[in-house]
């Protein structure tokens, strides 16, 4: 028995370890849905999703302001951050001198690794006063959150877009050069279109990060639970709604927060699905 048994046993052990991911996802789904769904038995799902008022003390639960808040803040961050990140990725792959690249690459990696509280702290003590002086308002606003989130999603998009652009065969670039195109138009007309789905995947990953960001947004966005009124007014996202009120919520209020988590989870699952479809298309 000895050796044969040991081989079989270890195979089972490794297999069990591989299943840990599956179990974790099942548990997360189970707990989120089991704790969140009963809420929809007590409060109408439609009025929860489209209600414009969030007054937990009066039993009024509408998370439309938070859904819109998440969408606006993410959209703003994308508008500010995505073009910058993609152009930087192009620069890093095609135009960057080697010595600069050796500095730039670790800098981007460090940006990706800086904790979100540190971003939040920077936003709170530097960006908020800056926005207040330059654009008016009290500084804790949608605009501030957009700028900060744009900074945070830069490294995510740069890293994925860079590897997407790199994965395009060199022959595309060289073929275009041989036809007499300049370096720049070869990159933008031949290489970029070929890496389209990879770049889109990078943007989607950035969206996922922006939608899920909590601490940094909470520290700069003002967090008023009302319909977003303008880019210089405060805004509250779904993530912030959960983390701000979970500490003292009870009963129906607590269930409403978990239901907010369920809505967020569904958003994230959709974003994930889109990302993996696009990513697969790029590798093919």
């Amino acid at each position: 028995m000895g050796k044969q048994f040991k081989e079989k046993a270890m195979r089972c052990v490794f297999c069990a370890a591989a299943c840990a991911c599956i179990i974790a996802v099942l548990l997360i789904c189970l707990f989120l849905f089991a704790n969140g769904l009963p809420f929809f038995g007590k409060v109408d799902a439609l009025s929860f999703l489209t209600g414009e008022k969030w007054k937990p003390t009066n039993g009024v639960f509408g998370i439309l302001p938070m859904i819109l808040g998440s969408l606006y803040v993410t959209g703003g961050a994308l508008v500010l951050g995505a073009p910058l990140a993609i152009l930087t990725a192009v620069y890093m792959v095609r135009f960057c001198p080697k010595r600069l690249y050796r500095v730039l690459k670790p800098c981007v990696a460090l940006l990706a690794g800086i904790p979100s509280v540190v971003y939040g702290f920077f936003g709170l003590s530097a960006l908020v006063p800056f926005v207040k002086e330059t654009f008016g308002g009290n500084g804790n606003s949608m605009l501030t959150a957009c700028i900060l989130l744009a900074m945070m999603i830069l490294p995510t998009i740069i890293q994925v877009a860079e590897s997407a652009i790199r994965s395009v065969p060199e022959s595309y670039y060289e073929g275009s050069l041989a036809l007499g195109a300049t370096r720049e138009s070869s990159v933008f007309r031949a290489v970029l279109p070929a890496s389209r789905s990879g770049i889109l995947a990078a943007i989607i990953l950035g969206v996922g990060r922006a939608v899920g960001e909590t601490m940094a947004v909470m520290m700069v966005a003002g967090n008023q639970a009302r319909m977003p009124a303008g880019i210089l007014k405060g805004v509250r996202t779904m993530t912030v709604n959960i983390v701000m009120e979970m500490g003292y919520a009870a009963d129906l209020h607590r269930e409403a927060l978990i239901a907010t988590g369920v809505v967020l989870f569904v958003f994230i699952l959709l974003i994930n699905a889109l990302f993996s479809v696009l990513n697969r298309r790029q590798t093919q």
Partner: protein
Amino acid sequence: MRRYIQNFRRYPGSGLLHLICTVSMGLVAGTFLLLVGYILITGVPELKWSLFSLEYNSDNVSLFPALVNTLLMTGLSLLIAAPLGIGGAIYLAEYANRGSKLVKAVRLTAETLSGIPSILYGLFGMMFFVTSLKWSYSLLAGGMTLAIMILPLILRTTEEALLSIPDSYREGSFGLGAGRLRTVMKIVLPPAGSGILAGIILAIGRVVGETAALIYTAGTVGNLPDSLMSSGRTLAVHMYVLSGEGLHVKEASATAVVLLVIVAGMNALSAAVAKKLTKG
């Protein structure tokens, strides 16, 4: 430089595109310098020895207990996630048939896990470990939550490291009559070691920076823990609490420097270790 100007004269459109790319890169580099510079300039003058005293109280606002908690939390989550992640990756890379249903399911769920935002991990940890298992706010509950969070990262990096080992190693080992287990343990794992280590170091970086997943699982008590079942805040949570109160902005900026140094150190270490792998 002259070449660029010449290029710009002959093909203004192309020159413009080049310029736009360069400016974008400049803006990103500027963002980096602004962020890191701001943290260092505001934080370094605030670093004092009293920040590292053994006991936390509202006078010294010591970050030392939080530092110890961070170490404990890192150790705890790695203790759970590293064996699971490495074992799972060994199964995916060495045992399973590529394209089998189980492999697909593991890939899909690992991808899903790495996309879930930390606040949802926090929510799950609170409902499962804190409430259902009745662990209350504790280092253990926080560590378990973070272990699930870093599991996909360790799984993926380990799998990549294993797949980068040439098949000839395995064939040579089988040819000499070694079994699969021996081949994995003695032949495949050692050269993949630095790649695996690089992934683990990245995971440590994520644990150190995590806040949202810990507030409602490990709690925010500022002192040294008595046991794994007592609440304690990590450095990132400590910093969040300080900047939220608005009274200890100086201490918060000093903590930001400590966090930044740890994360930069982890990144550098991971890159150095990974480089060793490619050199062989």
